[in-house]
């Protein structure tokens, strides 16, 4: 399946999913948060696509744009096809729906993102800190994070 065919199938399945204009070395689509779960479910279950591996999930803190970019890296062993799905949420109210009902590993990847970047996952079965203690304040991977131990990069 070529990249054009892939985007064609995806827009057919979920009209709100758009091909991303961001520079990326993998085929990338952007989708609004409310359509994420529906899109992901179809990406996994549609026999033409069958993206049944969620290779990685993380987030990027765009401080100046005041956005969190949620990144989902998918792989389809059947078609040997990669796909990155991007979701943008505002930095002051970062809530995305959980996809842990589709891929079990998402539950733990999402806990990592919550722990380090403070993104909240709607309907998550067990949202709690993963690496840090439960009473830690702040989210260390945010660009604005400050604490007593942080060092400046030498110029």
């Amino acid at each position, binding site marked *: 399946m070529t990249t054009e065919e892939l985007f064609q199938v995806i827009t057919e399945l979920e009209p709100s999913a758009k091909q991303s204009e961001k520079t990326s070395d993998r085929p990338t689509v952007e989708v609004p948060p409310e359509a994420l779960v529906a899109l992901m479910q179809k990406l996994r279950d549609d026999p033409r696509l069958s993206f049944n591996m969620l290779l990685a999930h993380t987030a990027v*803190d765009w401080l100046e744009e005041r956005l969190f970019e949620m*990144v989902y890296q998918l792989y389809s062993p059947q078609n040997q096809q990669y796909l990155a799905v991007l979701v943008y949420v505002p930095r002051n109210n970062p809530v995305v729906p959980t996809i842990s009902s589709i891929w079990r590993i998402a539950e733990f990847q999402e806990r990592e993102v919550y722990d380090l970047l403070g993104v909240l996952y709607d309907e998550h079965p067990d*949202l709690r800190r993963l690496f840090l203690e439960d009473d830690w304040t702040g989210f260390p991977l945010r660009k604005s994070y400050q604490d007593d131990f942080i060092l400046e990069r030498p110029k």
Partner: protein
Amino acid sequence: MSVNITTLDERTRVTSEADSALDTEEYFVNMGPQHPATHGVLRMVLKLDGETIKEVIPVLGYIHRSIEKICEHSTYRQIVHLTDRMDYLSSIMNNWAVSLTVEKAANIELTERIEYIRTIVAELERIHSHQVAWGVMGMDLGAFTPFLYGFRDRELVTDILEETIGARLTMNYIQPGGVMFDIHPNFVKKVKEYIAYFRPKLDEYEDLMSGNPIIQQRLRDVGTMDGETALSYGATGPVLRASRVPYDLRKIEPYGVYGKADFNVAIGTAGDCWDRYYVRIEEMRQSIRIIEQLIDNIPEGKFMVKKPAVKIKVPEGRYYGHVETARGVLGVFIVSQGKDIPYRMYFRTPNFHNLWCTTAIAPGGRIGDLVAITASLDLVIPDIDR
């Protein structure tokens, strides 16, 4: 909308009380962070009924060093030196993952010699990593001899690598644009000697452990995981392949010179601990085959494409690259703004993903089975925590 943030305290409360004097009561037991069978500082809170596991709750963070945050202040050549502190038994392959992604993004062309050296060194490391996995598995199951056998043979691999690289554990060798040093003049000869030495030793491994009835009973039909569950839990490497999914990056999208080598992907049939154990034995055989095919054909050329640049600039964009380490897929995700340091760096580590399989396959078994399961997953804890 319902966002409910919980704590470990809430998760580990006893919910069911004993109804009668004959009924059993649920209780929690801590396994780790200081426990010999967790191979490091992994803590698992076990919800038990008698000796039967009801639930496994892994608690992480005891060796978290925030490598991803340090990366945001480091040049790509500095980042390479952090990666071998993640999965220390796949250190060279971790170097390779970062180098591969940076080279692809910055369009750095490599010589054939570099690709050959990288592939051979990575396969040597895969052998020594599986030797440790094999030996430590024996020790976890109560047999001390395999541990000594595994380490005896592993020492010889590290001797060979030390001559070229200078380190025995956290080996920094591959870097963007090539490898740090040319191979030692003795390298080819010693590798051949080692292959000749190790091949019969591998049969000895099988005589010692594979046929042992205790090992068979501890591993067969324990921790069975089907392919669909393994994919859903993001498992990769020998763990996924043991569940009959032939996903091996060396085969499906060959990097280095894996495309030129003839080798088979070992897969299991049942997906139990035994299959995960045996897939590793078979992978050592295949690694020997790969090395044998490549070792005589290392072409002449540069080991570093140009004078090492301290500051490699990666063009703006998002880049994802990955390699098959001894434990699975190590993915590197770089978000660059065109500078010499990344804006955001994310490591998709194999052990982090493989770990969660315990929450699926351990419930219903005994505590002893959990020890066999963690041994068969071959977890390296610094790679989970990063």
